[in-house]
């Protein structure tokens, strides 16, 4: 039978009379756990922010028509040359359009799929921005702006004007911020654009778009799909890209493959597009855990040392306890409870320190053009990190306490009493 009250009382007395060692050992754990919580909250916060940045800017599935040479050259159709070795030099791509063949049926099909959160058509046109005598090359993207705003965070990047403004204007354009600066244009002004064929159209600037990535902002603008179709003189079914957002991102790769087969188009999933990005996240996580575990191991050694010292100092007490009827297990439990009290107190303090530090970081200003919605450093307050943190504190103090307490369990009282 184990008498916990007595055991805990002895453990408590030992800890209180050795306040300095107790505090040192607890602070070791506090430091380790606090650093773990702070690091992991901050690192995963950053990861998540970067992930969502990519996720929101990249469609889950991107459907387009790739211009490529025919796999079968006409000569292969001739039966006469069937067994011959044919050499065709200077192959050119098959004459075709960038247009997705049956864009509207695909769009309809996607909108009826219950796995699809949204699908929007896009028309990408090469144009020139005319500013006086200067021509700036660039892109004009025809979009269904309201649907675009629903399934992506494009709204965050429209720094002047709103998606509605674009939707409500026949000849509106959301001008790239870099372009606006170069041409000294602002909201409400007019800008002339010219197609590759040379037709010139005046468009009204209803807003400014800034992704934060200069290479995009210097060349790209948005207009309504209809507007761009009209500028190019194309029919209503002329779209070059379809962006799909799914309810479950995990299904993207399989679905992209299915779409390619079914509609003879090119479909890339976000997973293929961002394979490298994943690696980055994984490495950051790895570093976080490596550093945290190192800190906790150092804290564990601290506890091990201090308990060892304590047991060495308390040899006489251990002998007395054993001589008066405490069993080896009782003695072990006395020292294990000390380790666990240090672990619990240090661990809980560590969680508090980690939380406070996270809060501090969370309030530090962090502004970047690329992330218009973010104003402070991102922190991920996940309860699981706190659960893992306290478990780790308890496990490491348990291990650190086990060896010394096991030694105390086996101390032979006769040897101590004899003084050898």
């Amino acid at each position: 039978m184990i008498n916990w009250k007595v055991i805990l009382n002895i453990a408590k007395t030992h800890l209180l009379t050795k306040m300095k060692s107790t505090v040192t050992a607890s602070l070791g754990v506090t430091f380790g756990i606090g650093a773990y919580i702070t690091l992991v909250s901050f690192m995963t916060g950053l990861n998540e922010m970067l992930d969502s940045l990519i996720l929101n800017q990249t469609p889950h599935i991107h459907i387009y028509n790739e211009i490529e040479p025919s796999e079968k050259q006409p000569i292969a159709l001739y039966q006469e040359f069937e067994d011959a070795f044919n050499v065709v030099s200077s192959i050119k791509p098959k004459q075709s359009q960038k247009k997705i063949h049956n864009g509207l049926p695909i769009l309809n099909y996607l909108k009826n799929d219950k796995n699809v959160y949204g699908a929007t058509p896009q028309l990408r046109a090469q144009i020139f921005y005319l500013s006086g005598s200067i021509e700036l090359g660039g892109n004009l993207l025809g979009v269904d702006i309201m649907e675009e705003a629903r399934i992506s965070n494009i709204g965050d990047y429209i720094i002047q004007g709103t998606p509605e403004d674009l939707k409500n204007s026949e000849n509106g354009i959301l001008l790239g911020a870099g372009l606006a600066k170069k041409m000294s244009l602002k909201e409400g002004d007019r800008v002339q654009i010219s197609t590759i064929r040379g037709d010139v159209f005046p468009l009204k600037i209803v807003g400014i778009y800034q992704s934060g990535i200069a290479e995009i902002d210097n060349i790209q603008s948005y207009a309504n799909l209809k507007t761009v179709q009209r500028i190019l003189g194309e029919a209503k079914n002329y779209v070059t890209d379809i962006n799909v957002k799914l309810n479950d991102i995990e299904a993207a790769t399989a679905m992209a493959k299915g779409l390619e087969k079914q509609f003879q188009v090119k479909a890339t999933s976000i997973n293929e597009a961002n394979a490298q990005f994943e690696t980055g996240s994984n490495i950051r996580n790895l570093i976080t855990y490596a550093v945290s575990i190192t800190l906790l191991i150092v804290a564990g050694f601290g506890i091990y040392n201090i308990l060892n010292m304590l047991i060495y100092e308390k040899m006489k007490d251990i002998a007395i306890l054993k001589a008066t009827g405490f069993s080896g297990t009782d003695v072990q439990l006395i020292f294990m409870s000390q380790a666990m009290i240090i672990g619990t107190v240090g661990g809980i303090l560590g969680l508090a320190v980690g939380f406070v530090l996270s809060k501090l970081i969370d309030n530090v200003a962090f502004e970047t053009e690329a992330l218009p919605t973010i104003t402070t450093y991102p922190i991920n307050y996940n309860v699981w990190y706190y659960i893992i943190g306290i478990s780790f504190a308890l496990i490491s103090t348990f291990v650190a306490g086990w060896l010394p307490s096991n030694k105390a369990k086996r101390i032979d009282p006769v040897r101590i009493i004899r003084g050898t």
Partner: protein
Amino acid sequence: MNLVLETKNINKHFLKPKDFHVLKDISFGVEAGEFVSIMGKSGSGKSTLLYILSTMDTDYTGELFLNNTLITGQKHQELSRIRNKHIGFVFQFHYLLSEFSVLENVMLPAKKLAEKSVAEIEHDAMEKLIMLDIEKLAHQRASRISGGEKQRVAIARALINNPSILMGDEPTGNLDSHNSENVFSIFKRLKEEEGLSLLIVTHDEDFAKRTDRIIQMEDGRVLD
């Protein structure tokens, strides 16, 4: 004849640094209510024997009985319980837990036994302290009292669970003649008033002479 403690052919060897036959065929008994002293030259094996009798040392051959039950071969857990309940032990050096108060030191073995409530234990402990005339020290830290006082606290602690037998390894060895005399009269009173059995190792001839029986040891043997 009711034997509290009995040994049958106890032998013990120390193997290090070389084989040394320290106890040779020890057979004797202590009757209930008997006050026995053990004498013998230094190195004759008195302490070694006492550690075996107190169940702390289990590395021996032969048989040890306490209240007519065989103790030899019992598990460590069980030996701890027996030591706690049936055996009171007083060392030559007053071993007390220095961070605890006098009262807590006395109460600890009873708390471990857990047969009584804390209030009862405290009451019993105070009684023992009063009997030994140190009740004023009850709430002092054990490290802040004199040697003679510590020895009396150790006796109170040994008595707290009303053991079958009290063993002492030169309990007066470190005390002046006045304190020595004091401890002897306490033992005598415990025997007479409470019928306690005592087995005390001593070098003090006067002390031994006044006990019921002296066991003489020489070179690991009991002389008749």
